[in-house]
């Protein structure tokens, strides 16, 4: 443990200043030690070595010596100029010293013992003349072609590397790859500290440059093959696999550019730094959505980088102006930057490096790729996924909101991307066409949106001359209706609603009428009843009168018959008893 800590203290690193290389090597090349840079012809060894020297002189105040065994000073100056470096200027300012070592075998006769002290002296002199801290030997293997005594050469090379360590210069020694060895003459034997391999491969007619750190004694380093790019500003290496899932996330929400969609996404829009995917079949409005999102970002004053794989910038600008989105304005103001290439122009990894480089240069807050599905033309599906994973990780790390579109093909499932990247996506919007009644309309819904409540409704997606509009679609009777069918259905529904309302009114009125009729009937019955009761009373009275009249009549009759008072009394008693 203690030893390890001491090693960290001991192993100082010299930053190369080359984009990405310092990340992979965790700080640069071993300071004060030689590094072997090997690769096949044309793999970029000299260029990398050159940039190491130039960056050191310009950015780290470490002057450097470039000792070339292959190129004349004029060629060397041209090479430097191709990277935008002024070799003559740097030389006259004492930042760079060059020495061209030329050995022509035909001019040299070897007789007996010799050593390479001359080389040491030349290198030492060059180092001393400018106080150099960095040295490039490109490529020292040329000595093997110029001198025949390999035994002496090997011994002298061993001594040279040792000597450079003693001088404390950070050196790059280049060597050409051999058949089975890293270098043709086994230079890796002498350089034990750090070995970097450059590779230049062509797969399916697409070439990719790659860099790998074969070994780096006493230091951890990225172990993968990293693709790199050489352009007018030098070398860019992409440490794409060195990313993790530990990026910070933002709570900030940003508008999608479509107010209805913002409402559907919890009323606030996307999270900043999240990854949004819009997938859909051809002609469903993916590019329109991208452009809307881009315009919304620019309106907020953010920078937006737009990678177009299908259309040229001017075509996108023209097409988008037809739906009322003025992108040209943002391009002119410098908020929006288009980058159009054909996906097959170069390999996948080069695309990734290009993404990376442009993002570094432009520093956007919003990044759009339209569409990612075209990348599969440049590589296998598994590679595309790996590239996109690395890209998305990188974008998340930089808190760049990412908007990707994906063309799904009719026939395959819509809710599936050909690149199988759904798990990487935070918010997935789906556009689909709905064919009905001889019309083709666009439907839109949110398939998923991590970390927010979002609408589950399918909306009709309309492209108007004022941009995108989302409309609730008719789902009343179970069918999804869009376009004119929706309008017709809505009208029908309104009509039937109206009819229903008047029907209810009619029923109500009828009921009322019935009620009134019932009341009237009740009244009539009551009157009838009253009349009957009255009649009954009259009848009762009449009966009573008739009875009393009858009794009187009997008495009278008895009296008239003169039947004796006893008989009459009996009758009277009987009646009186009953009556009492």
């Amino acid at each position: 443990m203690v030893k390890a800590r001491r090693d960290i203290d001991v192993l100082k690193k010299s930053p190369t200043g080359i984009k990405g290389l310092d990340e992979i090597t965790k700080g640069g090349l071993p300071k004060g030690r030689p590094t072997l840079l090997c690769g096949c012809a044309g793999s970029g060894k000299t260029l990398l070595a050159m940039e190491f020297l130039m960056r050191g002189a310009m950015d780290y105040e470490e002057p450097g010596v470039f000792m070339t065994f292959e190129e004349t000073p004029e060629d060397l100056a041209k090479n430097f100029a191709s990277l935008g470096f002024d070799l003559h200027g740097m030389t006259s300012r004492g930042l760079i010293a060059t020495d061209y070592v030329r050995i022509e075998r035909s001019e040299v006769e070897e007789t007996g013992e010799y050593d390479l002290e001359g080389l040491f002296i030349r290198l030492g002199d060059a180092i001393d003349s400018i106080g150099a801290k960095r040295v490039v030997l490109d490529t020292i293997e040329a000595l093997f072609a110029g001198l025949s005594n390999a035994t002496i050469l090997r011994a002298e090379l061993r001594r040279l590397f040792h000597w450079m360590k003693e001088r404390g210069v950070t050196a790059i020694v280049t060597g050409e790859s051999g058949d089975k060895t890293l270098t043709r003459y086994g230079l890796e034997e002498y350089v034990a500290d750090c070995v970097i391999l450059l590779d230049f491969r062509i797969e399916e007619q697409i070439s990719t440059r790659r860099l790998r750190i074969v070994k780096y004694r006493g230091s951890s380093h990225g172990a993968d093959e990293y693709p790199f790019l050489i352009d007018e500003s030098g070398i860019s290496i992409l440490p794409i696999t060195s990313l993790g899932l530990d990026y910070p996330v933002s709570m900030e929400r940003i508008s999608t550019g479509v107010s209805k969609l913002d409402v559907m996404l919890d009323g606030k829009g996307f999270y900043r730094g999240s990854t949004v995917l819009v997938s859909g079949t051809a002609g469903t409005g993916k590019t329109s959505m991208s452009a809307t999102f881009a315009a919304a970002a620019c309106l907020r004053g953010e920078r937006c980088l737009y990678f177009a794989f299908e259309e040229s910038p001017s075509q996108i600008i023209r097409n988008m102006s037809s739906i009322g989105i003025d992108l040209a304005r943002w391009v002119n103001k410098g908020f929006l930057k288009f980058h159009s290439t054909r996906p097959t122009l170069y390999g996948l990894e080069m695309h990734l490096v290009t993404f990376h480089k442009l993002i570094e240069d432009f520093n956007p807050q919003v990044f759009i790729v339209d569409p990612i599905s075209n990348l599969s033309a440049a590589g296998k599906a598994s590679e595309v996924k790996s590239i996109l994973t690395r890209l998305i990780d990188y974008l998340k790390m930089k808190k760049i909101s990412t908007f990707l579109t994906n063309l799904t093909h009719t026939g395959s499932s819509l809710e599936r991307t050909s690149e199988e990247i759904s798990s990487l996506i935070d918010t997935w919007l789906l556009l689909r066409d709905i064919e009905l009644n001889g019309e083709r309309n666009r439907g839109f819904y949110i398939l998923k949106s991590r970390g927010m409540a979002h609408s589950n409704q399918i909306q009709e997606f309309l492209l108007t001359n004022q941009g995108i509009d989302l409309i609730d679609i008719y789902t009343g009777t179970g069918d999804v209706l869009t376009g004119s069918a929706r309008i017709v259905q809505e009208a029908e529904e309104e009509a039937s609603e109206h009819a229903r309302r008047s029907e209810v009114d009619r029923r109500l009125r009828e009921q009322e009428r019935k009620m009134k009729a019932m009341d009237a009937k009740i009244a009539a019955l009551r009157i009838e009843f009253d009349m009957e009761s009255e009649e009954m009373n009259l009848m009762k009275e009449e009966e009573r009168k008739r009875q009393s009249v009858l009794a009187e009549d009997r008495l009278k009759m008895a009296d008239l018959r003169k039947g004796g008072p006893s008989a009459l009394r009996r009758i009277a008693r009987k009646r009186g008893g009953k009556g009492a």
Partner: protein
Amino acid sequence: MEAVPPGERKQAKTDSTEKTWNLRLYVAGQTPKSIAAFSNLKKICEEHLAGKYRIEVVDLLKNPQLAKGDQIVAIPTLVRKLPEPLKKIIGDLANTERVLVGLDIRSISG
């Protein structure tokens, strides 16, 4: 730049029509190989070019910047400046045959 040690420089005196052999020996300090090379060279010159040669010994430890001009890598290196064309022989010049071939002396002395 001038000869070390002095007195080794010999000028052609006898025949002015014949070209002077202008030889330059690059060394780095007084190493055994340098000393051997110098004595070997002197012996060969005395034998084959007596009176018409000139040896200049350049010590790169003293004048390191001179190494560039003649593209010196190995030490010791003998450079035939004159007669043209320029020729180089590296090593301690122990193999007389090869030195003679390298300097193209044999054909002259015949």
